[in-house]
């Protein structure tokens, strides 16, 4: 097929040109590499942060300790009222007997303490555990609950979690900003490389025009050159992401860090490293092509 021969010859020409302008090509490739490594780290970072935030949010509950003197009827009423409070998702009742049994089972020290209590004595309080729909509004929800009848103590992990989520957000936005800036710089650098190539091949382009080479065939090698610069630049970042993330994940699991910091649990590498690699490859090639398209449109006036 004619079209395949033309494409083949264009690719050949673009590879030659990359070697001919070696230092310039290397500059573009290096910039692409740096950008894509950052993009890759950014993607993995935000992905994990998202998951961790979600975990934290799911584990975020409001614990309500009721007054000590409370009747069965009042408890039933309170449960009904709690369910009607705005933003409340689930309400779980834990009786003081259950808590007592839990304590006994949990460890021996607690068990010994409980043993000192009389048969009917139970200084603990009946309690409710509540999950909310929107973690942001947890403050208001807690305040509303505090004002309910017979409610003693209301506890929830408020500001620490919120601060953490805010910091994550800031880091995420900063990364996105940095990546956008770097993508622009890379596009510009690749465009510049292609521009130099175009100028260094002015003669050849003039001759091609004279002998009746069509405009698209003249342009094609330059487009391929940008594409190749971008894709070559994505190889190293992809390897770094695949090997690096697997390594980090394995060493974290080995160090049993996950049991210490219960919330910091990284997503398993399998699927995420490959989808990230694909994204890096995509960004690399698209940025390369955009760069060369820009240069061709500007400097290859035919």
């Amino acid at each position, binding site marked *: 097929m004619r079209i395949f*021969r033309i494409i083949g010859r264009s690719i050949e020409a673009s590879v030659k040109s990359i070697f001919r302008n070696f230092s310039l090509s290397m500059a573009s490739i290096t910039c692409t590499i740096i950008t894509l490594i950052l993009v890759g780290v950014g993607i993995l970072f935000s992905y994990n942060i998202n998951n961790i935030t979600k975990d934290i949010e799911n584990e975020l509950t409001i614990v309500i300790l009721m007054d000590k003197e409370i009747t069965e009827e009042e408890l039933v009423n309170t449960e009904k009222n709690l369910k009607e409070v705005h933003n409340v998702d689930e309400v779980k009742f834990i009786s003081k007997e259950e808590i007592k049994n839990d304590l006994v089972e949990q460890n021996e020290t607690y068990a010994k303490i409980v043993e000192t209590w009389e048969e009917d004595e139970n200084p603990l309080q009946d309690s409710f555990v509540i999950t909310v729909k929107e973690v942001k509004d947890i403050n208001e929800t807690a305040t509303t609950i505090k004002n309910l009848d017979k409610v003693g103590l209301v506890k929830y992990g408020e500001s620490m979690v919120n601060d953490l989520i805010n910091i994550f957000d800031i880091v995420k936005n900063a990364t996105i900003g940095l990546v956008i800036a770097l993508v622009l710089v890379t596009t510009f650098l690749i465009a510049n490389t292609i521009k130099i190539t175009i100028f260094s091949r002015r003669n050849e382009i003039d*001759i*091609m025009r004279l*002998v009746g*080479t*069509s405009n698209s065939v003249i342009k094609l090698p330059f487009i391929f050159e940008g594409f190749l610069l971008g894709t070559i630049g994505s190889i190293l970042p992809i390897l770094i992401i695949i090997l690096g993330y697997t390594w980090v994940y394995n060493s974290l699991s080995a160090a049993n860090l996950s049991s210490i910091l219960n919330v910091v649990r990284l997503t398993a590498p399998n699927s995420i490293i490959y989808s990230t690699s694909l994204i890096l490859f995509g960004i690399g090639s698209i940025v390369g092509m955009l760069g060369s398209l820009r240069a061709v449109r500007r400097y290859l006036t*035919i």
Partner: protein
Amino acid sequence: MEFIEFKDCTKIYKNGVTGIVNANLNISKGEFVFIIGHTASGKSTLIKLLYREEKPSSGSVYVGGVDVAKLRNNKIYKLRRKIGIVFQDFKLLPKLTAYENVAYSLESYGMKKSEIRPLVIAALDHVGLKDKTRSFPYQLSGGEQQRVCIARAIVNKPKLLICDEPTGNLDPDTSKEIMDVISKINKELGTTVVMATHDKDIVNRMKKRVVVIKEGLINKDTLKGSYKE
């Protein structure tokens, strides 16, 4: 309609300099025409209008029935494939061999290597350079380089061969050889030849149609003409 027709064709460059004024000229298929005139008279301009390197400011230029002035930019290549062009300064690619320089255009059209080969060999044979196919331009004499250019110009079997002072950089003997090659192409392949030149000897010897241009105007047009002051 003739193969080539200039109709009331005027070219004024952007900077206001006059190239060609109100040219009317017909050239038939298979003709051999010299364009002569003093320097800056407009010879190259007339030739550039033929292959749409320049666009007329007014009037029209027909080549093979097509109004070249009306061609869209991205369709010019179709015209160029039907025209061979030879220059004074050769315009060969220094990193390609003679063979590769001639094959270059056909490769860029996407032709098969197996189709390209016989065409290139035939073209190089026509200009008498069959034994130098592997030489690079710097390894060839001026005359040989010009032969490569002519081979490149005729490799796609064009109906029209345009030459702008093809012997301008060559000594008289070599010029004569080059002229022999070009007139052989005109005779044997029936290719129409339009040639701008300064070379009095050549024009006087060949006894072909001569068009004289003076300050952008077609001053004289004689069959079997000669170069007179």
